């Protein structure tokens, strides 16, 4: 196993995303963003043991864009977003699309290389070289070869190869789960009762965390545990706790597998 990331099925976030989007080619128009985002986050959770930090970052970056797209879709017509932010999202989406297309292109090109190699691999080249009648004519093969060179080659051969994955088990990959966010909200909301969304997410630094918390809120809304109000399309979103079961007793639709 190479020490760079090699997940059982997916080589990177584009690979995964492409798979999720194109797997149901029979009925492309039925593929919903929601399903894709959920599957993506779920796969991410499954993969986390195999991810190193660098790769996890790539996966998360795309998860963030996806979640943002999903969040946008969940609230059709919501236009209390600043134009700048809106444009930024579209830019991210277009960038993601372009990268997906490029990735898909090279994936298919790789398939062509594979077929070429397979075909060429059915023939073996003649490598026998000149027979002994010509041996005397060959130039001095040892010209310039020193004992030190032989030692260097031997040493290089004996050096351990960096082929194996080095231990990364001590690394805790970044985790963002809707379930955790739900738990946090169940802990926090009963204490505050009513709070605006911006205050609720005020101390969160990462956009992704805010998105996840938003999804968690929608989850609670669906289960009738909170009420969401918005006076007008540009107004602040207000969250009210409606009371309910003790923390932990809530079934959260699995976002993370």
């Amino acid at each position, binding site marked *: 196993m190479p020490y760079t990331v090699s997940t059982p099925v997916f080589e990177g*976030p*584009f690979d995964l995303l492409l798979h999720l989007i194109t797997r149901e080619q029979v009925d492309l128009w039925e*593929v919903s*963003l929601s399903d894709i985002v959920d599957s993506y986050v779920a796969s991410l959770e499954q993969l986390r043991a195999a991810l190193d930090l660098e790769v996890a970052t790539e996966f998360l970056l795309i998860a963030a864009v*996806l979640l943002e797209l999903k969040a946008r*879709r969940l609230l059709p017509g919501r236009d209390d977003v600043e134009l700048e932010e809106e444009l930024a999202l579209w830019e991210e989406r277009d960038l993601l699309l372009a990268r997906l297309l490029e990735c898909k292109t090279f994936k298919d*090109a*790789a398939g062509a290389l594979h077929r*070429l190699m397979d075909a060429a691999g059915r023939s073996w080249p*003649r490598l026998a070289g000149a027979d002994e009648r010509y041996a005397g004519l060959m130039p001095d093969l040892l010209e310039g070869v020193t004992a030190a060179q032989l030692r260097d080659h031997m040493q290089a051969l004996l050096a351990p190869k960096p082929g194996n994955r080095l231990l990364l088990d001590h690394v805790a990959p970044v985790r963002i789960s809707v379930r955790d966010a739900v738990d946090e909200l169940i802990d926090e909301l009963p204490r505050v009762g009513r709070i605006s969304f911006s205050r609720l997410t005020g101390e969160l630094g990462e956009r992704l965390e805010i998105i996840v918390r938003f999804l968690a809120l929608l989850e609670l809304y669906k289960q009738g545990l909170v009420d969401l109000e918005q006076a007008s399309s540009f107004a602040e979103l207000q969250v009210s706790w409606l009371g309910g079961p003790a923390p932990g007793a809530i079934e959260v639709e699995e976002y993370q597998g």
Partner: protein
Amino acid sequence: MASETLRAIEAIVMVADVPVEPHLLAQLLEVSPARVEELCAELEASYRDDDRGFTLVRVAGGYRYQSHGDLAAYVERFVLEGQTARLSAAALETLAIIAYKQPVSRAQIASIRGVNADGVIRTLQARGFITEAARDPGPGQALLYGTTPLLLERLGLDRIEELPPLAQFVPGPEIMDALEHSLQAGGVDDEDGGSRPTL
């Protein structure tokens, strides 16, 4: 009576252990490279007509003898180990990027694949399929990778330009649409029976 030049080409290619460039043959045989190409084509055709178990092919810029592909089952029994270990999907993808975009840096490869490609690059380099071809003249002076003649041999190609054009692999409209549609933000399309976001 076959011409001496024709026979000399056969004799030389038979003792070569790398593909022999037509220019070298031309020089040794004191004919033009174009004439060498003609004669090699003639030889290739005559082996084909005679239904020989070997072929003369042009690969990686030169001519070589190789076993006929349809006899692979027999040759495999003789050549104990497979010619090459199979490349992983990741390695093939990286190889495709390098083959089409060369010279190309690690960072460019990683950005196309969305994952770090260092391990795969090292594997491909160890297999002799790619090499450090140049350095980026820009500030970082990043190493740029390119493909090797060995890769051409493994692909059975004469020149890298013989690769099928990349445009051929650009996703068709269905895929484009699927991608675009799937990543549609906002609820604009949802009204007209498109996908419905569900929680």
